């Protein structure tokens, strides 16, 4: 009994279906594991993801649950620590026996837990932008990928500011592979890489990096900095009067640096995001309003928070159409190619070949006073690269991650 009590206490954010119809409460709940970093270096960007899942869950339960069954969350704080992901992934799959897991911020954490999902044949949603290339039937990815973020951003920057590009990136799988994408796209568009620097996670002092950039005199600086320590770069570059136009797939849309730092250190930053709270559409405004009603102190609603929110609704649709929580049944629904949702960003759909998601991509530009404007919007950008490169999850499941220099074998 004591053991049972402890395990119940350990389950942090259980949302009891108070408001659902009586019938819903009698049925067994659908359990959703949530593994996100609520403390540690990545917490700034990821606490909102948990809130997004809680908000969607509350709405769904208030409207009668999923196919009449209430949705129950099993939330663990992974503390920005890859080992915790592995421990908790085993726990939610083996002990809590959840029907699906929403997990992960950093690509290192995703690659840490993915083998465990494969081992126990679980079903995981990665609701985060990343470097792309995961071709794995056990995974659904709702975040944006390089062909959505870089194929839009880099040509725009080269055309607007010039051909010389410099990249500073976090030194782990995300930064390295993203930098490879940038390198390739810059070359395709007749640009030139004048420098590249990979920065270990946790580095917070950038004097010398700033000077290296000044030496190379780039027209465009691509910043792929991850974590709160690395975000110190902007303040220090601003103080040293380094004013190169910046481009990013992660900054602003994830760490809302334009809110955290004093203007104008992020001025002239361009980021491709699939959502941020400044998006000026009626759907987005309504979303921000209901979010603040539930979480009045939320510092910022970033793209991953929106992805996480949308993912719950997508999961609801999959289960209701499959009439089952079994992964094989759900994948038959995904294979039909019409699992779509009217998300706050616009309509999004899951691609059956890669199980990645199409997005509306907004080009967010940070002004001198750190206000955001959107010079360009690309509607319905598909996650085409994996499918074109030869990944087809409706036919086979390699459970591998591919990169431009390491594509699926069939197409070599």
């Amino acid at each position: 009994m004591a053991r049972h009590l402890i395990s119940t206490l350990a389950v942090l954010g259980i949302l009891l279906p108070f408001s659902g119809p009586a019938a819903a409460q009698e049925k067994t709940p659908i359990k959703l594991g949530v593994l996100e970093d609520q403390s540690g270096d990545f917490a700034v960007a990821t606490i909102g993801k948990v809130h997004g899942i809680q908000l969607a869950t509350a709405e769904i339960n208030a409207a009668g649950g999923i196919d009449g069954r209430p949705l129950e969350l099993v939330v663990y704080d992974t503390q920005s620590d890859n080992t915790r992901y592995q421990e908790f992934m085993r726990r939610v799959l083996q002990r809590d026996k959840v029907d699906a897991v929403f997990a992960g911020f950093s690509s290192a954490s995703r690659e840490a837990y993915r083998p465990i999902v494969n081992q126990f044949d679980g079903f995981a949603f990665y609701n985060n932008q990343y470097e792309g290339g995961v071709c794995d039937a056990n995974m659904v990815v709702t975040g944006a990928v390089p062909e959505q973020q870089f194929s839009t951003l880099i040509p725009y920057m080269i055309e607007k500011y010039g051909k010389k590009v410099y990249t500073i990136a976090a030194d782990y799988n995300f930064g390295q592979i993203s930098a490879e994408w940038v390198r390739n796209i810059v070359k395709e568009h007749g640009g030139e890489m004048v420098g590249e620097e990979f920065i270990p996670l946790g580095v917070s002092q950038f004097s010398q990096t700033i000077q290296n950039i000044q030496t190379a005199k780039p027209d465009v600086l691509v910043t792929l900095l991850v974590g709160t320590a690395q975000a110190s770069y902007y303040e220090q570059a601003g103080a040293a009067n380094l004013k190169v136009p910046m481009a990013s797939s992660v900054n602003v849309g994830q760490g809302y640096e334009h809110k955290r730092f004093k203007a104008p250190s992020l001025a002239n930053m361009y980021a491709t995001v699939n959502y941020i709270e400044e998006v000026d559409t009626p759907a987005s405004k309504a979303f921000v309003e209901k979010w603040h009603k539930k979480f009045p102190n939320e510092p910022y609603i970033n793209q991953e928070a929106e992805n996480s929110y949308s993912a719950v609704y997508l999961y609801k649709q999959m289960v209701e159409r499959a009439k089952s929580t079994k992964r094989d049944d759900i994948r038959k629904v995904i294979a039909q190619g019409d699992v779509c949702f009217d998300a706050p960003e616009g309509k999004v759909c899951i691609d059956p070949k890669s199980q990645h998601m199409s997005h509306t991509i907004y080009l967010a530009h940070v002004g001198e006073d750190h206000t955001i404007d959107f010079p360009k919007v690309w509607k319905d950008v598909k996650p085409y690269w994996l499918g074109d490169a030869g990944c087809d999850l409706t036919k086979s499941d390699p459970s591998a991650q591919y990169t431009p220099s390491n594509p699926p074998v069939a197409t070599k």
Partner: protein
Amino acid sequence: MDVLYSAFSLLYQSGDAFAFLVLSACGLAVIFGMMGVINLAHGEFILCGAYVSTSATHMGLPLPLAIALGAGVAGLIGMLLERLIVRHLYSRPLDTIVATWGISMIVTQGTLIVLGSTMQGTGTPFGSFVVGNYSYSVYRIVLMGMALATLAALWLVFTRTRFGVLARATIQVPHIAQALGVNTGLIYSLTFGLGAALAGLAGGLYAPTMTLVPTMGSAFIVEAFVTVVIGGADIFLGTAPAAAILGVVKAALTSWQGQLAGQIGMLLAVIVVIRILPRGISGWILKERA
């Protein structure tokens, strides 16, 4: 002229790395060198200094006063913690590591829960200047000056004031000092408070240039520990030369091959120094003299 510009650039970068190492390490060095306590909550005193000084700046206090306030509050909390926890563990050095580590985790998580995941920065003051092809931040020069001033002030405190003499006496032979009427309990408390205040000072000084998050102390802690480890127990003969050596190594390698090389080079330098001088730089200097 180009040579001069490059020389200035190397000097600036080394000075910048030196300032960061000295300011992050000297609080730790005082507590470890004088008291033999390995304070794993060092990063959280830095956090305290940064948060207090930033809040004070947001409330309209001028930056120098805000930084002083940050250092003061960190110092007072340090004295309080010494009285409540550390004092009972002086004869158990390993237990102080565990206790201060516990304090560190409680403070980091407590800050996250109470104050949220981030605090808005105040912006770096003083603007920038240009030498040759490069522009530099003026505030970084201020930080270098503060690092030197801190070392000078510590030297004066420990050699020219009554507190310094009593502190050194207490640390050297505690029971004799006590027999001669020194309130050793108070001295321990003040020394720990001084170390905490120095950590708070580092936090306050670097707060305008950094991300303000509950885990920000960890950005300082590796540099602080390696500096103290290779410096040895003495602040002036250890910490300062250690910071100078590491600063030059790190700046030169970062300029040559980027941040990763800088980090690797710094840690390799630590291994080499520890291998050749097991008692640290100060141990070696003192032995040569003897």
